[in-house]
């Protein structure tokens, strides 16, 4: 049995790092030198996908796929989103427009959202403390009151943070399926 979880979000949010933190295997990364330092001040960027795994048992694994953050690779988003059970959406708090970025990805991955399959991790909250997590939850409540997504501040290097975020996503997916016939 396999489960596919996507890691989505803008460039620089920490998707590759988060997969490395959770994966039981060395991560297969497709990173290239970043030509566009104005967009994000990092040396490399993901150009196809990152791949990691969590081995639940001999017969069950969770496959972790990190998608490239830039829109010019959105063909990879389409390829992977149809296969995914859920998505961890990582948004960095010091992005130019973190709430706008979140909205963009929620629209792009609307089908996953409709199935309860999204949890939001806000990274770098220590770098830009102006926005706090409840700003994201309040924004979601106004824009997508039907969504009911877990939201938390995370450090993608912190295993405890990432395990909790992933578990909250899985709990949400399972409970949505368990109570799916109950109207909101």
């Amino acid at each position, binding site marked *: 049995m396999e489960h596919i979880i996507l890691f989505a979000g803008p460039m620089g949010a920490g998707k590759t790092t988060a997969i490395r933190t959770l994966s039981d295997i060395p991560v297969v990364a497709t990173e290239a030198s970043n030509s566009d330092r104005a967009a994000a001040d990092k040396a490399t960027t993901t150009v*196809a996908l990152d791949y990691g795994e969590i081995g639940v048992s001999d017969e069950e694994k969770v496959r972790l796929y990190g998608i490239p953050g830039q829109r010019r690779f959105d063909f990879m988003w389409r390829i992977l989103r149809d296969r995914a059970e859920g998505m961890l959406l990582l948004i960095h708090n010091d992005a130019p427009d973190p709430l706008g970025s979140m909205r963009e990805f929620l629209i792009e991955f609307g089908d996953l959202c409709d199935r309860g399959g999204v949890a939001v991790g806000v990274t770098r909250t220590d770098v830009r403390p102006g926005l706090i997590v409840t700003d994201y939850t309040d924004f979601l409540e106004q824009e997508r009151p039907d969504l009911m997504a877990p939201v938390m501040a995370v450090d993608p290097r912190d295993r405890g943070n990432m395990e909790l975020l992933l578990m909250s996503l899985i709990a949400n997916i399972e409970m949505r399926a368990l109570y799916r016939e109950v109207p909101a």
Partner: protein
Amino acid sequence: MKLKHVAPHKDPDVVRLGTAALREMTELSSSLRHATVLTDDGFEVVGVPAHAADGRLASMASSIQALTEGVANELAIGPSSYVIIASETGHVIQLRIPGQQLVLAALFDGDETLGKALSTARIAAEKFAAALTSR
């Protein structure tokens, strides 16, 4: 000599030399439909004919190049030499510009033999690399 530390797709020298290399390709092979030079992270440096694929081929080719090199690395079979996508009405050949963080991707129609297409692409890549090195 490696590229100067300016993004290649913004370096007029690189664009000029790339354009020359791709124009030579069109003279070598009448079956060439489109060719592009792209950065490793998917920006188009130059394309002939211009605007033929709206930059999408550059993004997709960078993904393919990265996945290909990842597979070769994983299997420990040495660096990837070239990639061929063979389809009903055309072939895409892509290969790295030797010594550079640049890739050449070219679409030939089905009339061209794979061998000729690969040879044309290789010659263009090597000439471009030599021109960059001797700047």
